[in-house]
């Protein structure tokens, strides 16, 4: 249970949150027509006669959209309904020339599933929590209206009309803005792993309707909820919940009542406001779409969907901490984004191969490099860094030299800097730029002999029990070697010679 509470005059209130996430399905063509789904085209160029609802046109579902929704359902451990059906949701608005949206009310493609949000003390999520997902159904997106281009008219662009959406409906299982934020981030991560949605919230590929209600702590009945539409970032979702929950508490504490209504979120103020829609706006008069037969999926199709699923975030994280022995922190950071783990796994494979050790023996070194060392160098260089030079092979070769003791951690960074600036090969840089540490025991022994001879008094004190002086000898040796001696070799020889 989260400890998110709102203090009112008459006591403490808790918040109940459910989210309906609309995720644009990754497909080349639309759900029921072969017009393109590409983002950013000229207005109304990607509109077919079907999308424009010309008379006599019949919708035919895109197999890829169905496949992606099924795979998404499998990724949240949901029941897949082998028999589902499309319904018409009737309403009149200029963004939808059909006069109805083809959706799935009665028999959705995907049934009950769930996902796990991870404990995050700092964010106020004390322990791991399962959020149930009620259903996923497939439906058409609507077009885009622009209200600010003409004094008396709205402009309509139907490019987005008919693009496939998955509506992913959670149960009201979240009890704080932080949990809602974690849920969306986790869902986005799963969608991106699966490849069924690019998760790009700026381009509108993912947006959420936020259902919020409040009740006195201890009450078991749900309060009346409001629905805030089309919130398009994790931060805004959290802001909308905070504001809306506080508003509801204020109304109730003043003796008022919450009206079940649709609200809009204003990103500029962080507030929600009523859409003041007519009451009958929600009377959608759903009925089965007579243009479409029921959708029946066979076992072979479902099996192919299941086999195409990649390793998912939870399983990957468990493997990183278990098999690879990474820290919880590293595992979480590395598995959060598809690009991050893809880069890590490529580099890990290359490094393990180069060094000739199993992956688990080099995993922590590679993880630290990927998460902190390399990004640090790239950030410090700023515009001077050309990250295309930072191939997995080059980075693996740096890590290889470091693992073998040929270069120090500092030298690894310096070499990486030169790689980023010039695209030269690390081995060649180490040789020609003098960025190698000396592991040649002869040279180090020589330096140490000189130091011991010049500091007879300190040697005496050290042997007399003043252990701290060991650091002095290391320092002197490194100085004599101009910082290029392998510290482990130096330590070993010093210990041998000082006795």
């Amino acid at each position, binding site marked *: 249970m989260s400890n998110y509470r709102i203090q009112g005059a008459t006591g403490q209130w808790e918040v109940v949150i459910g989210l309906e996430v609309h995720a644009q399905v990754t*497909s*080349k*063509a639309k759900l029921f*027509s*072969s*017009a*393109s789904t590409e983002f950013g085209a*000229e*207005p*109304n*160029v*990607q*509109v*077919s*006669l*079907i*999308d*424009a609802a010309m008379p006599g*046109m019949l919708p*035919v*579902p*895109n*197999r*890829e*959209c*169905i496949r992606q929704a099924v795979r998404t359902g499998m990724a949240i451990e949901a029941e897949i309904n082998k028999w589902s059906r499309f319904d018409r949701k*009737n309403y*009149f*608005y*200029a963004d939808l020339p059909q*006069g109805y949206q083809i959706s799935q009310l009665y028999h959705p493609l995907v049934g009950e599933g769930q996902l796990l949000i991870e404990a995050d003390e700092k964010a106020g999520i004390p322990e791991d929590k399962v959020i149930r997902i009620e259903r996923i159904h497939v439906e058409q997106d609507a077009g885009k*209206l*622009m*209200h600010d*281009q*003409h004094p*008396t*008219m*709205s*402009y*309509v*662009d*139907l490019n987005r009309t008919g693009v496939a959406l998955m509506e992913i409906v959670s149960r009201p299982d979240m009890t704080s803005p932080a949990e809602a934020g974690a849920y969306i981030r986790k869902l986005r991560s799963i969608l991106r792993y699966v490849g069924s949605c690019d998760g790009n919230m700026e381009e509108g590929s993912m947006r959420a309707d936020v259902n919020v209600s409040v009740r006195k702590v201890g009450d078991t009945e749900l309060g009346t909820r409001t629905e805030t539409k089309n919130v398009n970032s994790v931060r805004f979702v959290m802001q909308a919940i905070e504001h809306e929950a506080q508003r509801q508490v204020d109304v109730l504490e003043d003796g008022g009542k919450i009206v079940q209504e649709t609200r*809009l979120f204003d990103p500029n103020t962080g507030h929600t406001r009523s*859409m*003041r*829609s007519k009451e*009958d706006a929600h*009377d959608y*008069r759903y009925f089965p779409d007579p243009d*479409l*037969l*029921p*959708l*029946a999926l066979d076992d072979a199709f479902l099996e192919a969907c299941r086999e195409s699923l990649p390793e998912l975030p939870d399983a990957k994280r468990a493997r990183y901490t278990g098999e690879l022995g990474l820290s919880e922190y590293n595992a979480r950071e590395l598995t959060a984004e598809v690009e991050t783990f893809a880069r890590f796994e490529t580099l890990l494979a290359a490094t393990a191969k180069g060094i000739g050790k199993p992956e688990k023996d080099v995993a922590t070194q590679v993880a630290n490099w990927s998460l902190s060392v390399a990004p640090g160098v790239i950030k410090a260089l700023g515009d001077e860094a050309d990250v295309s030079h930072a191939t997995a092979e080059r980075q693996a070769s740096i890590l290889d030299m470091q693992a073998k003791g040929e270069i120090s951690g500092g030298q690894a960074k310096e070499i990486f800097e030169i790689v980023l600036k010039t695209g030269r090969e690390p081995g060649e840089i180490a040789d020609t730029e003098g960025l190698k540490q000396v592991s040649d025991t002869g040279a180090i022994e020589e330096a140490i002999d000189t130091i011991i001879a010049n500091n007879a008094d300190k040697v005496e004190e050290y042997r007399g029990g003043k252990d701290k002086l060991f650091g002095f000898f290391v320092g002197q040796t490194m100085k004599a070697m101009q910082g290029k001696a392998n510290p482990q070799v130096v330590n070993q020889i010093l210990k041998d010679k000082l006795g």
Partner: protein
Amino acid sequence: MAKIASLARIDVDEKDLDHMVPEFNNILAWVEQLGEVDTSSVEPMTAVIPQELRLRDDVVDADPLTGGGKRDAILANAPVAEHGFFGVPKVIE
């Protein structure tokens, strides 16, 4: 009656509403009567001949009839079309 008409965007004359009410009630009563038949053991019929829903491949503009790239045709019958957009009376909430 007036609400149903407005939901369906059908303009019905005030004076016609009254005599439409019994007509509608007749239809509703008849549908209600159909509900009395026990259909618990009958599969819903979705088509008169057995057939399955066809699916299309994910190919852009596979068929010129059902593809995009025909803005002029799409906008040809629009009462107002400007700069490639449909123009409609301002609708804003």
